């Protein structure tokens, strides 16, 4: 499981993709936190996710509540259904 898709664009945008699980969620959290220190407004886009787990879902929740950033979640229908099945209706 790698954070290969966790791409930093160098501006106020962060795109998250690939495998995001407990293995790399801390690193991702630190990276977003670091960006937030620099940029007043941050845009986080989640797309082309391959694997994700509960640790990442929790992080998405915190991002969704964070006012200083905009969160766009573009995931597949199947992944949406998975989230719904596990009861994360509020995230979508």
């Amino acid at each position, binding site marked *: 499981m*790698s954070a290969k898709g966790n791409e930093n664009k160098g501006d106020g945008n962060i795109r998250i993709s690939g495998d995001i699980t407990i*293995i790399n969620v801390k690193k991702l959290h630190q990276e977003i936190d670091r960006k937030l220190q620099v940029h007043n407004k941050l845009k986080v886009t989640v797309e082309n996710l391959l*694997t994700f*787990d509960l640790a990442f879902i929790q992080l998405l929740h*915190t991002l969704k509540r964070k006012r200083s950033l905009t969160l766009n979640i573009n995931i597949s229908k199947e992944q949406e259904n998975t989230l719904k*099945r*596990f*009861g*994360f209706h509020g995230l979508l």
Partner: protein
Amino acid sequence: MDSYQEHYLIEATELISNLENALLVLEKTPDDKSQVEEVFRIMHTLKGGAGMFGFQKIEELTHYLENIYDLIRDNKLATTAQILDVTLSTVDHLTALLYDAECKEEINKENHARIKNEIDIIVKAIGITEATAERTHSQKEVVSNASALYHIVFKPNKEIFANGTNPLFIVEDLLALGDGRAFARTTRIPPFDKINPEKCFVYWDLLIFTGTPVEEIKDVFIFIEDQCEIAVNKVCAFNIFENNQIDLKLFENPKTFNSYLVEIASRAPKKKTEDHINKKSELSGNTGVVASTDDDLDMGNPKERIKNISSIRVASDKLDDLMNLVSELVTTQAGLSLYSEQNPDRRLEVFSENIEKLTRQLRDTAFSMTLIPINHLFQRFKRLVRDVSLQLNKEIDLVIKGGETELDKTIIEALADPLMHILRNSLDHGLEHEDERISAGKNKTGTVTISAYYSGANVHIQIKDDGKGIDQEKIRAKAIEKGLIGKHDKLNKAEILDLIFAPGLSTAAQITDVSGRGVGMDVVRKNVTNLRGEILVDSEVGKGSVVEIILPLTLSIIDGLLVQLEHTKYVIPLEVVEKCHELNAGELQENINQLVTLDGKQVPFLDLREAFDADKNTAPELTQIIVVHKNHKRVGICVDTIIGEYQAVLKPVGKYYRNQEFISGATILGDGTIALVLDTNKIIEQSIGQKIVAL
């Protein structure tokens, strides 16, 4: 390696070992559904963690096997030898994949491809596709007359990720029980700035309409019951999800969940709701709705609550550190006791005595933590016996007795190779082939029994087979040929059999892959001796052989009797001390047969002054004789002075003492000087004049 992956590695190693054992049991009882269930569950847990912690190759293999075993547990497939063989091959490969997660090593690549191919053959033969696998899961939606709606609260501990558990798999398993909905509660998730993303904050309210009994629902949590809080309560006997009777939005909101559930449950006709009432509702007057809050879970009947944590996993190196610290403390405490004796002060004496008492208790507690059941080791042999029996084409039964016997983990680790070697010898050279056994009037199946038991402060381990036994004449002839003994040497049975531990002696007519290279038994004895143990053998031609290993319970600290000879101090293990006597030195010096009469019985004795070539002129008028015993043999050891009891932290002796057979170790005394630990086994052997065979 990430700390989570390390955690998974430990967990998975244990799971793989459990899986192997479960498969070996299943092989013997292929129709036992509970065993199939066990295999499935272990596989499922293994798969869950593998996917979560980056072991995709493990996830891939276990996924397919899990589907196969799912069909077996649903009676759609029988447990065949082919399936078991492939699964056992996979077990070996999974262990390799734990250390080569991406399967880069050539040998692992080859094995992976071969196993995958073997699995594919089975999968194609039974026609598993992802769709059928999913269907298998969904078919577990058991809806019978006894079905009911259950409210399940599943609240994982914050640390659950660290244990390699993925709570989503648990939710998935619960939903697979019937017609259900999960409602994730996210209110406990801290804000972005405060969250530790590696902790778990989510919990769930689940509503499941199923015919599965409560106990079986709770089985879903069987592997994580100490990592979560759960509550399972029956709500009503009808499916609230049928015909879209409900507003799911009201369940999604934790604030309206309980009141809406009460309302829904109360809609049922009275006769249907009679059995909805659970313990909690009896007390509260409500329906069986369990409140789930952010702070506490009301678990209803306390008896229903899953038990609290009863054990924790501790890394073995931490235990080693603890034992080292305790050893240092014991040495320091000895120094304090000595100082207290030399500087009389009432308060100092009280402190010193209390510290001594506490140190002893701490030592015993720390020591008990390092003891593990020897079954950990014995279980590994089941697989060995299975594989070797197939390889040698011999039917073999392995009987394990006393697996609960506990031994220092360091000893158990060091015992693996010697025991494996002895066992291989028994399987290969000891047990006869089927036709030989039948013509000898024996059962066609050979039996090897491995047993362990306590005897005093020692643990005895026996490996016994009912094979052809060791031919003493062959051993003798081989030993003469190798120049180990002279042609005319007279040896008794025990001495002849003991020759099997001599370097380079193997009487096996054929060198096989399993054993018989003529190296090994001498190394086995060396390894056992290094553990302060002893190895003995007995055998009867036509009936079988038994090899016995006798080991101390611990390697690090012993209770000893501190004695002195001239200026040197010695420690005698207290466990072997029977009695102390005082005699005139003259009585011993005039003795010609090395026997002394103590309490009306003649006892052989060893005068350490003589053995260690000390000055006879400095001998005190009164000599102390300490009688030590072993397996009914008694020997007196003569010293100048008995100082008293002493907790000895054992240290290996340096190279200058390596060839001194009466010394097995050393210890540092409170004043910083060294005391040598006497090897009473050797002293008894030499004094009695023959090796002790306790078989």
